[in-house]
């Protein structure tokens, strides 16, 4: 199988070298990690930053008078400022640390939406959503009598924009939409959607879990009201999510969890809350993860989104071309590389996705199989699961070539 040769210098970079975990063998085979939509691996800088935190300045933040606490506090606030600039938020007060994307969506649902929406108001989601952007709204619907409406997809998996136009009415108070589908890699036209939603005075939350590592984010240019993502899907540590919210909306949000760090003055019967962002950050946050996330952001910024997109695009084109040549493989959703990022959902004819996943694992290749936390979308194709290949910037043409060859071998032995 030929590997594309190119004059482009980007093909020469060996980014995987910075990732210790990628150097190991699984069942005596070199690990090929293609489950990046679930979580990306961490470069050595991030791992070292975690260790450095525990070795040199582990302390609780915003509280103590001692030196270690002020170093930790400054580092946490530095990360906040970095994220603000990274996604182009107007102020650092608009960056809230959460446990993850899921926690960020739940926070908005349980505070902003719970307070501002009334029975009969409508929330629009889409069929492409991850369960994390379905269930919190279902819970709210049950609790408040809010109505959940779902934007369907077309047969190629892209959002049905005509249906969106129909569903968006004066009753729509909130649109909660995934930016990039975690199952199909399809990029939704969020700028257009935000514009249309705002024309109807609906507030828009965008789930950016799959976009943050793969394309530049500009919350002000998009005029998005809430934007959420997780650090661990962008080369950062686990346990940390980011909620961006426009200040006007975050200020409307009542505190969700009470505790230390979010209060200015407490008597046994009443408390005065801290201003943003602290009022929404009760308790000790994952300080080590927040500090180390700086290195992940630096990793992305050093390569640059332009190069990241170029590399991942080339890998996607290569992978899809090879996979489309295999008759026994069904690819789901559009293969138009202008409309998607490096996520490929597939099935092998006559084989169960779990079997394919285990057979790939035995060859050192890590993919995701099953419902992929997007059961409504999987149901749409009337299958009981899929195999998902998802790329990151450290993947190589060789990774793709080996994986496709492995799939061919598996099909030859076990396919029908």
């Amino acid at each position, binding site marked *: 199988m030929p590997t594309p040769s190119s004059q482009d210098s980007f093909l020469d970079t060996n980014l995987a070298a910075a990732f210790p975990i990628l150097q190991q063998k699984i*069942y005596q085979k070199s690990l090929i990690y293609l489950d990046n939509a679930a979580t990306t691996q961490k470069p050595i800088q991030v791992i070292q930053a975690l260790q450095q935190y525990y070795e040199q300045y582990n302390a609780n933040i915003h509280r103590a008078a001692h030196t270690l606490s002020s170093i930790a506090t400054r580092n946490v606030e530095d990360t906040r400022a970095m994220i603000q600039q990274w996604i182009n938020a107007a102020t650092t007060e608009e960056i809230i640390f959460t446990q993850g994307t899921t926690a960020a969506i739940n926070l908005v649902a349980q505070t902003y939406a719970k307070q501002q929406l009334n029975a009969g108001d409508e929330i629009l989601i889409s069929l492409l959503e991850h369960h994390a952007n379905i269930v919190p709204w279902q819970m709210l619907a049950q609790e408040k009598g809010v109505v959940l409406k779902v934007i369907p997809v077309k047969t190629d998996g892209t959002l049905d924009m005509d249906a969106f136009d129909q569903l968006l009415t004066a009753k729509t108070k909130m649109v909660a939409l995934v930016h990039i589908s975690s199952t199909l890699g399809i990029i939704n036209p969020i700028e257009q959607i935000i514009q249309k939603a705002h024309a109807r005075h609906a507030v828009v939350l965008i789930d950016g879990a799959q976009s943050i590592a793969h394309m530049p984010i500009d919350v002000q240019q998009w005029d998005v009201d809430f934007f959420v993502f997780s650090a661990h899907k962008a080369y950062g540590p686990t346990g940390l999510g980011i909620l961006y919210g426009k200040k006007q909306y975050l200020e409307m949000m009542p505190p969700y969890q009470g505790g230390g760090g979010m209060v200015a003055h407490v008597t046994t019967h009443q408390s005065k809350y801290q201003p943003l962002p602290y009022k929404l950050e009760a308790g000790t946050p994952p300080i080590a993860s927040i500090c180390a996330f700086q290195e992940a952001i630096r990793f992305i910024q050093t390569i640059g989104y332009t190069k990241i997109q170029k590399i991942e695009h080339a890998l996607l084109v290569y992978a899809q071309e090879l996979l489309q040549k295999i008759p026994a493989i069904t690819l789901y959703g559009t293969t138009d590389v202008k409309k998607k990022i490096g996520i490929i959902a597939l099935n092998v004819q006559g084989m169960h996705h779990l079997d394919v996943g*285990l057979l790939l*694992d035995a060859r050192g290749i890590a993919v995701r199989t099953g419902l992929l936390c997007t059961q409504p979308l999987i149901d749409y194709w009337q299958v009981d699961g899929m195999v998902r290949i998802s790329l990151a910037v450290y993947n190589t043409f060789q990774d793709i070539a080996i994986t496709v060859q492995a799939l061919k071998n598996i099909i030859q032995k076990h396919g029908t």
Partner: protein
Amino acid sequence: MAHDIALTDILQRRQKIMDAFQFLGEDQQAKLEYLMDLGEALPSLTAAQRSEENKISGCMSKVWLVHREEKGVLILAGDSNTVITKGLLSLLIQLYTHQKPKIIIDHDFSWLQTIGLYQIIGAQRANGFAHMINRCKMVALRYYKQKV
């Protein structure tokens, strides 16, 4: 005496499985292929047999087990929608079919650790496999109680 013969029989069957895995050694891929071969060789159940009642819950894939008693021994058959799981089920059936209920109830499965089965199938499937073993033992117990 009959009991001793049955015991010898299940130990022999166990040894056969252990030998097969020993032969495959450290080759993960070969072990999976072997399980798939077993799965592919196991006759499928009819659509009617793949009922909700016969389904074993707690598995990642769909698994069904049917059973009947004939002359004091239990006769088992099963099916799954994934081939590797069907292979695992096939191992269980190899061991347990045409055995007396008491033999099935008493059989200790800790030897599975020694063939590295759990590394091959992963933690989630190991959990599902435990559910399959459990179902076999519960079925055996039901027949055993009817006799006593």
